[in-house]
């Protein structure tokens, strides 16, 4: 006997997590009709390039602020950060209360005047004015590439999530959402994207707000929630038994916390990541530079800061509620990461947390509203990327490098075509992502490569008039190469990386008919909890449970990775090749040596016929001796990788992230900090030896040479600096309260 059930009751997760009623479908269909209808209505207001790319620069502070925050509040954020909270606890709120809000305040008060007064149409456009065409071209091309990759990733995530939640075909989801976005962005450009983002803001809040409200009522309030979370994490995250999952800062003295990062990384690394995203990602900046005046742009940004500060209520709180309230029988339910081989076979994943809570609380109608919120979140994120792509491509790549003197109508048409092409490219990158497992890490890596170098040279350019065009260009370009180098380094394994031993059971096809593998599971009743601490508790000694002692594969195909087989006794273990099991049968051990360590062998299938049960089911066990009966087809692979973007080599991460214990999140945070410092050091170094621009050319672009416009007196409650101070004090209060 090797091990017990992988999950209770021969665990398998249902094929579809949520079931929609006709009412839910009606709500989703109404949303699609509304967004396309608004696109057709707004087409008449997008007659010029300024209308299409910059929404006529007529947005009020509220519309700009809601759009600013909605462009970021995608479904990926909703599901991703509630999942991260389940994994890391309240520390995940640093993403809002330390990474985002201070950066948004900085954008509003310090950077916005430069962006707004120089009347740039884009962030690469600012680079052209402040430095020269070289920096602008690098900025334009890298940003266009990043938006397409991000948009594709959003599209892929949406398709995957809708497939897992609702059973929708992934191709269907990708194409329907893409065509819808293509229609409304192509028709009216940025104004259409902004309108839909504001609608999406309401849908996301109204579609998800009920979950934390009902959850808090059910658990009995905040103090009960804290108590239950701390009790349940003993079972859910036994490796972090002593960690405080409801504290922001108190566990950051070392790397021994669920996030695997220390206070230094959060304060200096994560904050720089936030500044780079919020202050230089054109997708965000575009939303507020189109406000009707500077004050509206600043106040719109600050409205965004206030709203961002509130987002943890619908994102972080559900993560904590998931730790407290999701149960598997009488035990807390344990979710696994997407990269875990059990994911979606026998266990729900972290990303399923919000849908599981939706399924728990939302009935017909409300569930449709919740699913609509998720779809709207994805589509508006995609639309935001596409409209930003069209602007940057047309103004910063096509116009300066390809066709300098065309008519406004020509550029408007180019923007429309770019929107369609952007969607097509995004679909391509969406399919590329079928090969990646962790989307949030993918986004972090993209930010590290494209945004941190940009932020370094932009902030230097705004604050230091001595920074030269050559300094800006080389600081930007070399930091991009350095970050790519760090990305490659942490995923490189000079001595080879061997994936954990695993086996996938597959169907065979006989005469065009699918034959799922047939499996017999042999169990025996054994004393429960022996050798565990719980066995010492009263009333536990007479408990018996059924445990799997052997699995017999009667028919089908089995694909083995790094699993040694002994075909006949006395022979060398068989590690790669294909064969059909002969009369003697073959046995797979419960454990195998992998890179010098003993690892339990995991066996999975999306579809098996279990002896004694009707119909097919998902299936997964680990560490169990398995017998392959004669006739079973075997495909054995021996896999050693020297580069794997999903794995981190601790040999290198311990230098870059200051600790071998640093988790992937921490590794990228530290690499981002180094990237930023590299861009600043190179830009400063090169500037000291090259000629700066004349001060006359830097007017309205650099601190000290920029005169703020006189927009007249305003009531005290419209004063941006006052609101910035209020938001900063509230932010400090939140950090102290949840210390």
């Amino acid at each position, binding site marked *: 006997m090797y091990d017990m059930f992988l999950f209770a009751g021969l665990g398998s997760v249902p094929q579809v997590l949520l079931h929609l009623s006709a*009412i839910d479908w*009606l*709500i989703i269909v*109404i*949303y699609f009709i*509304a967004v396309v209808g*608004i696109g057709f*209505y707004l087409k*008449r*207001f*997008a*007659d*010029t390039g*300024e*209308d299409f790319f910059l*929404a*006529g620069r*007529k947005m*009020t502070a*509220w*519309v700009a602020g809601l759009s600013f925050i909605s462009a970021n509040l995608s479904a990926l954020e909703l599901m991703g950060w509630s999942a991260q909270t389940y994994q890391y606890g309240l520390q995940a709120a640093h993403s809002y209360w330390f990474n985002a809000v201070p950066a948004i305040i900085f954008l509003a008060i310090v950077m916005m005047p430069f962006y707004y007064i120089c009347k740039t149409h884009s962030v690469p456009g600012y680079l052209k004015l402040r430095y020269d065409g070289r920096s602008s071209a690098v900025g334009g091309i890298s940003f266009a590439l990043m938006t397409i990759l991000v948009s594709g990733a959003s599209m892929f995530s949406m398709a995957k999530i809708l497939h897992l939640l609702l059973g929708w075909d992934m191709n269907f989801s990708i194409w329907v959402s893409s065509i819808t976005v293509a229609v409304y962005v192509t028709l009216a450009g940025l*104004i259409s994207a902004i*309108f839909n983002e*504001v*609608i999406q803001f*309401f*849908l996301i809040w*109204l579609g998800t707000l*009920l979950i934390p409200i*009902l959850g808090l*009522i*059910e658990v009995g309030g905040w103090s009960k929630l804290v108590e239950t979370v701390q009790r349940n994490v003993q079972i859910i995250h036994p490796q972090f038994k002593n960690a405080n999952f409801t504290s922001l800062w108190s566990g950051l003295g070392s790397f021994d916390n669920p996030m695997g990062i220390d206070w230094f990384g959060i304060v200096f690394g994560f904050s720089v990541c936030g500044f780079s995203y919020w202050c230089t990602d054109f997708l965000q900046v575009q939303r507020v530079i189109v406000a009707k005046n500077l004050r509206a742009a600043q106040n719109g940004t600050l409205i965004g800061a206030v709203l961002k500060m509130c987002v943890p209520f619908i994102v972080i709180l559900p993560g904590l509620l998931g730790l407290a309230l999701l149960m598997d029988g009488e035990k807390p339910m344990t979710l696994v990461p997407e990269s875990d081989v059990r994911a979606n076979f026998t266990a729900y994943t972290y990303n399923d947390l919000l849908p599981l809570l939706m399924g*728990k*609380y*939302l*009935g*017909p*109608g*409300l569930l449709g*509203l919740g699913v609509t919120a998720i779809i709207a979140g994805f589509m508006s994120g995609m639309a935001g990327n596409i409209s930003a792509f069209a602007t940057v491509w047309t103004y910063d790549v096509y116009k300066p490098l390809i066709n300098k003197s065309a008519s406004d109508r020509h550029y408007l048409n180019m923007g429309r075509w770019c929107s369609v092409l952007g969607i097509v490219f995004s679909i391509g990158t969406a399919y590329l992502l079928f090969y990646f497992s962790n989307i949030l890490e993918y986004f972090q890596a993209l930010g590290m490569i494209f945004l941190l170098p940009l932020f370094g040279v932009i902030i230097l350019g705004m604050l230091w008039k001595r920074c030269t065009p050559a300094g800006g260009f080389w600081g930007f370009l070399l930091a991009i190469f350095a970050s790519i180098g760090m990305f490659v380094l942490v995923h490189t394994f000079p001595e080879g990386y061997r994936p954990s031993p695993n086996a996938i059971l597959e169907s065979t096809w006989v005469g065009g008919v699918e034959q799922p593998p047939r499996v017999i599971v042999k169990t025996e009743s054994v004393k429960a909890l022996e050798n565990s601490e719980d066995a010492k508790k009263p009333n536990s000694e007479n408990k018996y449970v059924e445990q799997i002692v052997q699995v017999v594969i009667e028919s089908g195909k089995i694909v083995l990775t790094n699993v040694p087989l002994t075909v006949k006794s006395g022979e060398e273990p068989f590690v790669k090749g294909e064969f059909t099991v002969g009369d003697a049968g073959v046995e797979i051990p419960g454990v195998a040596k992998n890179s010098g360590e003993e690892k339990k062998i995991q066996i999975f299938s999306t579809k098996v016929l279990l002896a004694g049960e009707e119909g097919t089911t998902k299936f997964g066990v680990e560490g169990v001796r398995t017998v392959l009966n004669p006739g079973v087809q075997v495909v054995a692979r021996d896999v050693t990788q020297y580069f794997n973007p999903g794995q981190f080599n601790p040999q290198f991460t311990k230098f870059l992230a200051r600790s071998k214990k640093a988790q992937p999140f921490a590794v990228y945070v530290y690499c981002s900090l180094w990237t930023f410092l590299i861009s600043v050091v190179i830009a400063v170094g090169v500037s000291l030896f090259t000629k700066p621009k004349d001060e006359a050319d830097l007017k309205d672009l650099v601190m000290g040479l920029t005169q703020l416009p006189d927009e007249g007196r305003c009531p005290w409650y419209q004063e941006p600096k006052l609101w910035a101070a209020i938001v900063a004090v509230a932010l400090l209060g939140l950090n102290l309260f949840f210390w």
Partner: protein
Amino acid sequence: MDEQKQIPIWFFIGTLLLIYGVIITGVGVYYCIFPAPQGLAMQDYHPDLWWGILLLAIGGFYTFHYFPSRKKNG
């Protein structure tokens, strides 16, 4: 861009929320009379009914306040 004739965004939001409010309030009323689906938590509080009424209130306010024929716009 023809700003004079453009319907404010708030009107679109109001209309959408109003439609959703009618549907969800209708469902809420139905489940006050007939039993709600099994397996849902906290249904004694009738969240669909209250949430539907909230949607109706927000949607109704925006639709009325920003109705295109009224002079005021956002």
